[in-house]
């Protein structure tokens, strides 16, 4: 899922300067699960913003609404009235949600309340790690189910760099070396020989480098 973190109150309140009212829009999917932009967080943030505005000598009225998903227009339509009920919208969706709200409300300022971080997994309570960059050409079949594009700091396709030491990455002793993980898996699976094959240079057009991407599925249209 998409992992996101709330921006600081300071940054959010600065971006709200000049507005008398704001709708805090939660999102019911990824950011609810990672506890950064769900209904609970939206209510807490809305209260905090009112108090913060007051303490700075201003006045901000907030309300909260929670579309099932901000990345689907049908749910924005469902919440149209609530979303449009204030001077501006503070979205607690990922970057996609913020932008889709801006499309839905062309005459309103839509502000981000979160920093969208990555596609990742929940490893423990309050602990998420990045697993996928959405590069558009999955090579996990070749690397034992561990992604070197995302999890190697240098996106090495053909083994560890010289900075791998005792299974850790040179950038940080808490970061696993992706190639150590790949090696361990391939060895366990009895497929180490496959690592001798050279992975040729990549065509990055399937990734962001080819420009903004879209998927069109005629079969479901």
């Amino acid at each position, binding site marked *: 899922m998409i992992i996101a973190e709330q921006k600081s109150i300071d940054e959010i309140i600065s971006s709200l300067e000049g507005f008398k009212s704001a709708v805090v829009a939660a999102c019911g999917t990824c950011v609810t699960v990672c506890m950064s932009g769900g209904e609970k967080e939206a209510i807490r943030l809305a209260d905090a913003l009112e108090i913060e505005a007051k303490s700075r000598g201003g006045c901000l009225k907030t309300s909260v609404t929670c579309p099932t998903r901000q990345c689907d227009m049908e749910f924005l339509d469902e919440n149209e009235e609530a979303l449009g009920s204030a001077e501006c919208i503070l979205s607690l969706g990922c970057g996609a949600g913020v932008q889709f709200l801006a499309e839905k409300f062309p005459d309103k300022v839509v502000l981000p309340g979160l920093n969208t971080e990555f596609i990742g997994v929940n490893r423990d309570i309050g602990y998420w790690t990045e697993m996928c960059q959405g590069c558009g050409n999955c090579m996990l079949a070749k690397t034992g189910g561990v992604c070197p594009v995302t999890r190697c700091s*240098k996106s090495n396709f053909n*083994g560890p760099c010289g900075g791998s*030491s005792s299974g850790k990455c040179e950038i940080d002793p808490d970061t696993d070396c992706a190639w150590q993980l790949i090696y361990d898996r391939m060895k366990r699976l009895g497929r180490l020989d496959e690592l001798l094959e050279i992975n040729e*240079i990549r065509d990055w057009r399937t990734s962001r480098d080819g420009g903004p991407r879209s998927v069109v599925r005629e079969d479901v249209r």
Partner: protein
Amino acid sequence: MPGDKGNLQKILESGAFSVSAEIGPPMSADANFVIKKASELKGIIDSANVTDNQTAVVRMSSIAASYLASVNGVEPVVQMTCRDRNRIAIQSDLLGAYALGLRNLLVLSGDHQCFGNHPQSKNVYDVDSIQLLGSLKRMKEEGVFMGGSKCKFPAEFFLGATVNPFADPEELQLIRLRKKIKAGAQFVQTQAIYDVAKFEEWMEKVRSLGLHKQAYIIAGIVVNKSLKSIEMTQLVPGMLVPDALVERMRAAGQGNYDSEGVSIALDLIAQLRKVEGVSGIHIMAIGWESIVPTLVEKSGFLPRPVIE
């Protein structure tokens, strides 16, 4: 001339033992810095590696500094990391380097930018070092760019790679070395060696795979000037410095560290040149380049062979 060979390649192909060192470009636009280093090393070594923004600290470009070294009498080994350039920039820069008469190229991943003075920067890693070696071999042999179009007058570098004999897991590191050589590395420089016994064990594996016959293995050494310097080296991940050597430095006592550092380096060189399958020595005198001529001379490497 296109296709002509550089000094390092000629020496290695002749079967002579190569001797090389490093020229770290300045963190400035000061040409005299490079010219001075080159003048100290002229006639003393066969080639000098010219680093590419080592430890991700911005320095004069490897290609520009290499050119300055070459016109001042030292054959350079241009270094190219995969960190800072995409395939368009890499190929463009390398065509330029070859056009300037530079013939040796060492390909590396590059230290992550978090270690340098621009940790805020974006990194590239469009291609990795093995992919780059493979592409440059193809350019040389088939006259094609990475994108597939023809290159009429390709850059035909003598291609090098690096290896750390002490990195773990050893099995994976050997797989990577085999891939580098398969991809196109003609010479391979090792990380600094202090533990010759461990290195001998590793070389036995390299020989059993026949890798020393497919690429020239050049043993790297670091020369330390102080007790602190060898102690710090011992702490670098992936470096194997036996306690005995640190003790030897300590025992030499304050005031004698530099001469003991030279003595340790000379011993290492003497042992490494005898290891079967080692084709040359590469001296990394970080911050103490002026000691290189002494090491080369005392090792009996002078005069350097001249091969037509």
